[in-house]
């Protein structure tokens, strides 16, 4: 069990949702995440940039069928920080 740590980078609503989606998969496509959290490309890009700058998310691009797709992946540090943040939220909410 990871020690609860509140992470202000992750806590912002959009970034929290991005991390939640990425925590369950190896990688998720930019468009899938955008549609899942109902934001524009530019808003998602800003959130991803902040997570990338914090070392929590890695971005890669791949061309398949003549179309370039952007894939997002939670880094090891990102997974650890997200787990710790969820633990802290759970503690603050008085759950568990």
């Amino acid at each position, binding site marked *: 069990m990871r020690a609860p740590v509140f992470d202000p980078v992750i806590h912002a*609503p959009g970034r929290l949702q991005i991390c*939640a989606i990425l925590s369950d998969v190896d990688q998720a496509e930019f468009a899938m995440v955008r549609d899942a959290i109902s934001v524009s490309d530019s808003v998602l890009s800003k959130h991803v940039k902040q997570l990338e700058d914090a070392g929590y998310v890695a971005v890669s691009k791949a061309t398949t069928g003549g179309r370039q797709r952007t894939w997002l992946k939670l880094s090891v540090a990102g997974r650890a920080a997200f787990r710790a943040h969820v633990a802290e939220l759970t503690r*603050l909410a008085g759950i568990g």
Partner: protein
Amino acid sequence: MTEPQQTPAEALEAIRQSRATVREAVRDQKGAARFALIYSSIAAVMVGGQVFSAPFNVFCSAGGAVAFGLLARSWSQRTGVWISGVTPKKARWVAFGLGAVMLALMLIAVWAGRSGHLWAGLPLAAAGFGSAWGGSALWMKVFLAETRDQ
């Protein structure tokens, strides 16, 4: 960028809802049966093909590996997510178990082929098909339960 504050309870609810969208994407009701059929058929060819001598057995295993890769890529492009199968802690043991069963069936097929029991390829292929079908269904069930409970 405006970043409204949210209470811990609201944040946990947002996490739960986000994870639900992943489960919906992975479940992919429309393509699930077709995926299982193709996946299990590839596994059957990989297992059953091992009764033959080289290069046919190598063709079956190498061709099957390539087919698995293409199937996984097609699935990830359709769903927008890539899951290796070993990321979730509990679901990974289902993946490892299925891999072990497939390996065992392939080794039995190799032994049967070398012993001259080529007929064994058919029932072993059927066992590979059934194991892959059941294993993938079990993996999906464990994955969905695990991501729902987190």
